[in-house]
């Protein structure tokens, strides 16, 4: 056990607020964009579908690092001002993961049985009521496990923000501690990895709670979940 462990840990913990802020901000933007783009993908209006398809494929088709560098370094040349790292980071994390989230929302809404639509029509609910009262409550339950995986991906991606000098967890390790205590890199990065693991476990814990709550509101018991279904749907193009 190194004798400067307290210094290492406290320096790393200084980066925690920025990591948490970027992750929470990114999650907020992701949720908004996922629902907006995901529902737009199902819209009867062709124009809306084309726009959201363009957004989804554009952000899923390019690298997150490129998006980050473009927004942080290139965009200022076009718009005349530079975003502070945290806002640029939240924007990129939200835009990128929102594109993946849109597919989750679309898939979940489509997975609600056809009879539920027909029942809502038979009760002469308006399209808005049908969506809000019947379809979405059931779809949201389906979305929670894949969104859990997506949010963990987002947490992991927040480490990229160290590349645009946001003083978050990874930056504290790589740019503050490593130059000072290079020979202790093993300890430093092990601590960082453990901190990320704890954050990921926190996200999973919260999402499990939400899932149980959403299930109870529908009067369902805890659904049997399949790990792989959730995993395959968040990563890659499929």
């Amino acid at each position, binding site marked *: 056990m190194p004798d400067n462990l307290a210094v290492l840990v406290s320096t790393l913990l200084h980066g925690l607020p920025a990591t948490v802020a970027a992750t929470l901000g990114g999650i907020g933007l992701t949720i908004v964009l996922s629902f907006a783009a995901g529902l737009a993908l199902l819209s009867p209006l062709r124009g809306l579908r084309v726009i959201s398809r363009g957004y989804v*494929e*554009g952000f*899923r*088709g*390019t*690298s*997150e*690092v*490129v*998006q980050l*560098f*473009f927004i942080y*370094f*290139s965009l200022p*040349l*076009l718009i005349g001002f530079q975003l502070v790292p945290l806002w640029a980071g939240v924007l990129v994390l939200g835009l990128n993961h929102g594109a993946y989230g849109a597919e989750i929302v679309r898939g979940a809404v489509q997975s609600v049985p056809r009879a539920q639509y027909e029942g809502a029509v038979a009760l002469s609910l308006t399209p808005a009521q049908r969506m809000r009262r019947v379809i979405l409550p059931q779809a949201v339950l389906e979305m929670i496990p894949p969104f859990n995986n997506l949010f*963990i991906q987002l*947490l*992991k*991606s*927040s*480490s*990229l923000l*160290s*590349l645009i000098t946001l003083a978050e967890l*990874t930056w504290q*390790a*790589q740019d503050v501690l*490593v130059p000072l205590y*290079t*020979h202790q*890199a*093993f300890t430093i*990065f*092990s601590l*960082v*990895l453990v901190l*990320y*693991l704890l954050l*990921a*476990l926190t996200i999973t814990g919260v999402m499990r709670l939400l899932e149980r709550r959403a299930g109870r509101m529908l009067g369902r018991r805890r659904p049997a979940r399949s*790990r*792989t*279904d959730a*995993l*395959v749907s968040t*990563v*890659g*193009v*499929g």
Partner: protein
Amino acid sequence: MDRWDWGFALDILPDLLRGLLITFVATVLGSVLAYSLGLVFALLLRTGFAPLTVVVRGFIEFVRSTPLLVQLYFLFFVLPQTFGITLGSLTVGVIGLGVHYSTYTAEVYRAGIDAVPRGQWEAALALNLPQRRTWTGVILPQAIPRVLPALGNYTISMFKETPLLLAIGVLELVGAAQQAGGNAFRYLEAYTLAGLFFLLLSYPSGLLLRRLERRVGLAS
């Protein structure tokens, strides 16, 4: 539009293409490592030997829950310091990508193996095939083709994550763009072109994989 300089874009194109080549090398080698190591993990998890499966499962969860960037830094500093292994940064990058993605491919193989009907196992048993032949002759030849699209999706994901290697000094596509743009303080052309390259390569391959998936994919 005077902010976009076509001449400069053309000037830096050769550098970017050289970077793209490195990106390809990293993606291909990383995939080879991820595909093989993932299969090893999947098979280890099926041994049913509790201490082993606990360790492998723990490793997979740990690697999956932590950022690839930090794992790359870890390998980059710790391999030479603690283990005395000095490797080039591209090699370290390939190891990082491969190990990270093997934890995902392990899950893909597991799903593929689970999807082989029970009757196939029973038939292999009835024919008194040895363990080895059961795997190489019966189970894997049915499991692997069906998971190829899912594996391919991870290759595309990996392709899009190779720019992380610039953090440990690999001059792949985005690293090359950074350097080319930095020399002239012109970042617009470099990053736009890098983004276009990614889109032009990963979108069509995604479409191809979707077609492949429809033909051979798991029924689920």
